[in-house]
């Protein structure tokens, strides 16, 4: 190589014909491919899906004779809607005009606080959802029949809330396990979808922090 990279750049672009802008197609309706926008779109879609989910649950559960379970699931989903709305609002404060470091750091803080807010709630949501389903199972006709069969097979005189003690113990243990792994479950799900992006973000931050030292 004889030329410096500066000369290569300068001379190379003097008569460069390929600096013509590509054709723009329907830009206004384009779905953004940026991580921030993508997550904003996801949160917005999530809110709509949750509202729709609440309504579907309410109608469906009422139709199958479990209106209280429908109402209960709605009540569980409501805080998720509130969290999603709050997080979406926060994300709009991120501007792309800052320095790259500030932009990446702000984005990362927002992402972490969002994940934290969601995982805090999922720790409560998953076990409560399980409890709701379990109670509905116990009070349903099919559940009553199953429990009767169970008591016949494993008789006991110790009853808690009208149910054999071991059933309550098993349900309590499962609830605890679900509660313990709720956050891990949520993070696993998140990692499957966004693992690569998170890794890229971490690498970028490490590189930029090294540059600031």
């Amino acid at each position, binding site marked *: *190589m004889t*030329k410096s*990279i*500066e000369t*290569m*750049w300068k*001379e*190379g*672009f003097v*008569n*460069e*014909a*390929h*600096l*013509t*802008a*590509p054709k*723009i*197609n329907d*830009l*206004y309706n*384009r779905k*953004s*491919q*940026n*991580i*921030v926008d*993508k997550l904003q779109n996801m949160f917005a879609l999530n809110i709509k899906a949750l509202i729709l989910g609440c309504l579907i649950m309410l109608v469906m559960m009422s139709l199958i004779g479990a209106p209280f379970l429908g109402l209960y699931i709605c009540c569980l989903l409501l805080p998720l809607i509130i969290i999603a709305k709050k997080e979406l609002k926060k994300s709009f404060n991120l*501007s*792309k*005009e*800052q*320095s*790259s*470091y*500030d*932009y*990446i750091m702000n*984005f990362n803080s927002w992402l972490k606080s969002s994940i934290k807010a969601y995982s805090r709630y999922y720790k409560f949501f998953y076990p409560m959802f399980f409890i709701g389903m379990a109670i509905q199972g116990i009070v349903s006709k099919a559940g009553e029949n199953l429990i009767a069969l169970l008591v016949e097979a494993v008789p006991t005189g110790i009853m808690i809330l009208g149910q054999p003690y071991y059933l309550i113990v098993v349900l309590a243990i499962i609830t605890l396990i679900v509660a313990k792994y709720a956050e891990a479950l949520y993070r696993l799900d998140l990692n499957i979808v966004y693992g*690569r*992006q998170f890794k*890229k973000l971490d*690498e*970028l931050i490490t*590189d*930029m922090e090294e*540059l*600031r*030292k």
Partner: protein
Amino acid sequence: MGSDFYQLSILPFASIIIKICRAYTNSQEDFEDYYQEVCLQIWRSKDNFNQQCEWSTWIYRISLNVCLTYLKRRKSGDKQIVSDALPEEVIDDSKAFVSDEINQLYSAIKHLSETDRAIILLYLEEKSYDEIAEMIGSNSNNIGVRINRIKGKLNKFINQKD
């Protein structure tokens, strides 16, 4: 986006966007995707432009931040991946520019980390160390040191190819 805004405020600066987007993409399809995304984000951010810097600086800043956080579309299906330094990937737009030297330089730049790509592009566009530091979010001393290191890497890569 109003076509007036595109014609008057983006198109005259298209070369900036093209130079940056080319450094973060490996195919014409990806390049066009990135280009459009940058235009979209410039348009969305236009109301925040406070004239404390030049419009061209604003375009550099948004283009870099968009390229750093862009999601590439996989060819099959609709899943998205992030753009990485891809030394092992075949770079299929090695003839993106007419000039062989520029193509060679871009090929070397694409082997750098994403932050280094941003720094060297700004340096080659004759931005001062202070301006680069301000845009990247570092200080000019560190930028100077890093630029020397990057130039070393680029020269090494280009010499290997020669």
